[in-house]
């Protein structure tokens, strides 16, 4: 067998791939999506809380948000997942009777995503012109209502691309919870590929896993570009001449 044949056999063994793909789609894909989407949604909630604390007029709230963010952004994901998954595992089992590593895995992913998303939201909210807050407050809205009805929705809109990037990261990082030990039915895409590789000694299942990740992430990357362009260029402006006559003619 020549070198090229060897290469194909190692990475593109269709038979080895074919055997693993059904499991990847029926077990791995749903599990990966569950991990990424739940921790993405919870991370957004946590991130919003951190962002609001980060811009609050209360120094203690700002300090807590700052310290939290610095710590959780500064640690390797695998370390956080291990420490939380294994450290809190026994207490969690005693409290709930559940042995699933998912809740603690999701907790760890959420805590990290929240730190990143909090910074994303904060920068978005701070980029909204202060005139918006002022106009809302001039109408009689409280600071809180003005923030939630007027400022935060605009801030979030501006950082949608960064938010989608964060979801892409979560899809990839969800693979790390394999370190907590997964039952067969709990395995996500990477772990299924990895197990099949160990069994067969062939890398093709991992290549299949990689392709599946790309099928998830590449469209999201393009969605980011699309949103980005849309936000930057916006819909084509169609300004019209001012119809002064209408206003003056009607009177007030």
């Amino acid at each position, binding site marked *: 067998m020549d070198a090229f044949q060897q290469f194909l056999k190692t990475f593109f063994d269709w038979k080895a791939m074919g055997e693993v793909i059904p499991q990847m789609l029926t077990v791995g894909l749903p599990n990966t999506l569950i991990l990424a989407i739940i921790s993405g949604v919870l991370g957004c909630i946590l991130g919003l809380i951190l962002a609001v604390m980060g811009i609050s007029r209360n120094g203690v709230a700002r300090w807590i948000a700052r310290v939290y963010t610095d710590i959780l952004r500064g640690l390797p994901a695998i370390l956080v997942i291990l420490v939380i998954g294994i450290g809190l595992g026994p207490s969690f089992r005693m409290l709930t009777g559940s042995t699933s590593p998912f809740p603690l895995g999701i907790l760890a992913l959420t805590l990290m995503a929240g730190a990143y998303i909090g910074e994303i939201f904060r920068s978005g909210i701070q980029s909204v012109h202060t005139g918006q807050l002022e106009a809302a407050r*001039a109408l009689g809205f409280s600071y809180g209502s003005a923030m939630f009805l007027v400022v935060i929705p605009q801030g979030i809109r501006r950082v949608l691309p960064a938010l989608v990037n964060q979801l892409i990261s979560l899809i990839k990082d969800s693979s790390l919870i394999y370190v907590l030990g997964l039952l067969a039915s709990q395995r996500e895409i990477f772990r299924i590929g990895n197990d099949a590789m160990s069994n067969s000694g062939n890398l093709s299942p991992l290549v299949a896993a990689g392709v599946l990740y790309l099928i998830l992430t590449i469209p999201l990357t393009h969605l980011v570009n699309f949103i980005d362009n849309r936000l930057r260029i916006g819909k084509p402006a169609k300004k019209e001449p*001012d119809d002064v006559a209408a206003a003056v003619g009607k009177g*007030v």
Partner: protein
Amino acid sequence: MTVLTSGTLTGKNLHLSFGHNHVLRGIDLHVPQGTTASVIGPSGSGKSTLLRVMNRLIEPDQGDILLDGRSVLQDNPDELRRRIGMVFQQFNLFPHKTVVENVSLALHKLRRMPKDQARAEALEQLDLVGLRHKAEARPADLSGGQMQRVAIARALAMKPEVMFFDEATSALDPELVKGVLALMADLAQSGMTMVVVTHEMGFCRNVSDTVTFMDAGVVVETGSPDQLFTAPETDRLKRFLSDVL
């Protein structure tokens, strides 16, 4: 258009500092109900700050604010601001909402009107400024003059007793200024109590009942437009008028 028959606004000895910058140094401003007070003065003299202090967007360090003779400093500032409409130089429309939503938002959320009723009311306000046909547009799709008229409709929808205008036409292209000034003049005519910070000396002279000239955080002169424009007493006002006229 019906205008509430209340809204005599008085600022007494108002002081405000930003850090070491003493911006308002004891301002008195009296605006009887149904009259229009213009405030003029050089850039940085504290005109915008005065408006923000009078509706308590910024709390004064010292002094009092009276509405219909009663001090409002003990009231909830959010409720005070519902009684005073404000229009900004940069319009500050909410870009993520449609024109009609800009106008109905406060009616729905603050006046607690059902959504349909708030919308109907907002459409009526838009009609009064001649922009009902733009109800579903986004602010970004309007001209500056149209945006400012929507901003005026948004403030009027709350049925304020007093209206503040902070250089409402300064950001507009010259050909759009007239429409907005005409709308403000109509409003003054209809009996609204108004405080108008402006560089439009024509409006000052023809529409306002009193003119107040501020410089460096103090009121230098105040009186009828005729008094200030034809017989300015101070050198500072004379210099200012010769610069702007």
